[in-house]
């Protein structure tokens, strides 16, 4: 879901970088020193998850997990995702410097939306409610990310509309997969280590 270097137009790049810089600045200010290791842990989980390929029909996709990152971190998801994407850029040449702002925004904004929408719900005492919301959370995070990628492409130029549509459609199965994964993962954490969810 990374947008590579050289594709987006200057206004889109500048908007992405500006919004990401503001959000990262705000969240760093809110973050306490003792939280830094925890944020770094989730940042690296996000990084490592992108290396885990799971089969999906004839091909395979890598895990995204921005929904879970949002649930666990709230606003700190912004710096966490920024750092992970920066490392992906330097180590694997995936994404890049000029697109770092846009790519971080596309991943982290949905994470924060999920935090505000489902923060209480997935910690609910009712298991059924919690797990249903976990599915919606995983699904919605990818849907929003895909939509934002599409919007970034369309704002770059109208001829990209087809590419944008394709990108969004290709992510439909991924949304369902991420939803299912989020259900099991949240279910696992609720059973094994509820402290992580701060229940």
């Amino acid at each position, binding site marked *: 879901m990374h947008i590579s270097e050289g594709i987006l137009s200057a206004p889109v790049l500048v908007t992405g970088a500006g919004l990401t810089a503001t959000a990262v600045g705000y969240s*760093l200010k809110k973050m306490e020193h003792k939280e830094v290791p925890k944020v*770094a842990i989730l940042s690296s989980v996000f990084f490592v998850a992108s290396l885990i390929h*799971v089969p999906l029909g004839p091909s395979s996709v890598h895990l995204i997990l921005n929904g879970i990152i949002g649930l666990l971190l709230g606003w700190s998801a912004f710096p966490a995702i920024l750092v992970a994407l920066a490392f992906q850029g*330097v180590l694997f040449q995936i994404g890049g410097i000029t697109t770092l702002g846009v790519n971080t925004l596309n991943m982290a904004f949905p994470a924060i939306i999920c935090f505000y929408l489902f923060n209480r719900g997935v910690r609910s005492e009712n298991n059924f409610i919690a797990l249903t919301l976990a599915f919606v959370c995983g699904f919605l995070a990818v849907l929003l990310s895909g939509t934002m990628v599409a919007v970034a492409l369309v704002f770059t130029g109208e001829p990209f509309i087809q590419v944008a549509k394709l990108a969004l459609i290709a992510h439909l199965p991924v949304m369902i997969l991420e939803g299912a994964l989020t259900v*099991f993962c949240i279910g696992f954490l609720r059973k094994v280590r509820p402290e992580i969810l701060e229940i």
Partner: protein
Amino acid sequence: MIKEKFSKGDSFFHKLDPRVKIVVTLLFSVIVAVSDKYTSLWGALFLAVAAVIVARLRTKEVISRLLVVNSFIFLLWLMLPFTFQGEKVYTLGSLGISQEGIKYALLITIKSNSIILVGIALLSTSSIFNLVHALRHLHLPDKLVQLFFFTYRYIHTIHSEYIRLNNALKIRGFKPQTNLHTYKTYAYLVGMMLVRSYDRSKRVYNAMLCRGFKGKFWTLNHFVSKKADFAAGIVMISCVMGLVLLS
């Protein structure tokens, strides 16, 4: 293991001050990304290829990195020539291939490849620790720099944790397929990674507090900018500025 494949070597770029490299790469990438003139973009590609040659990297490895990037660009080549309005150079049934579309796809290809090549030649020739150290000197917020340090450290431990868990799965005959069982297993694997790394982060932080950590990282070996670093920086920046003049 996650390796910094290009970071070892003794070329000019391997020895150059990382601060200079970061500034030049950033400047180059931004200028190329917003440029849309062919003359300056061909110039940029020329500079990028020259930089990779100077960095004396393994060609095979560089090409394999480029292939990954270009696989996505290839997709654009399949679509853009058909979706662009303008003069048609060739018609294929109801589909017309427009010249504008081809030009645009070429533009993106040059931009993308030049930025990636310069990134490989300049940034990837430093170790991550040096780059992050340099970010500190470039006055990024303290907490962000610490995040970079910690994250890089944990990426390795979490990745080896993943490999350990994955081996345990393989030994028990787990074969990933498209079914719910597979997804459940992977979700539990991620959950376990989270649990283990949470515990680890607590231990590490407590150990740091014991050793007097007060929220500040001290650096022991500072960069020493030599005159050569300054000179190289100025030459490279003027090359990049030359690109602006070309357009």
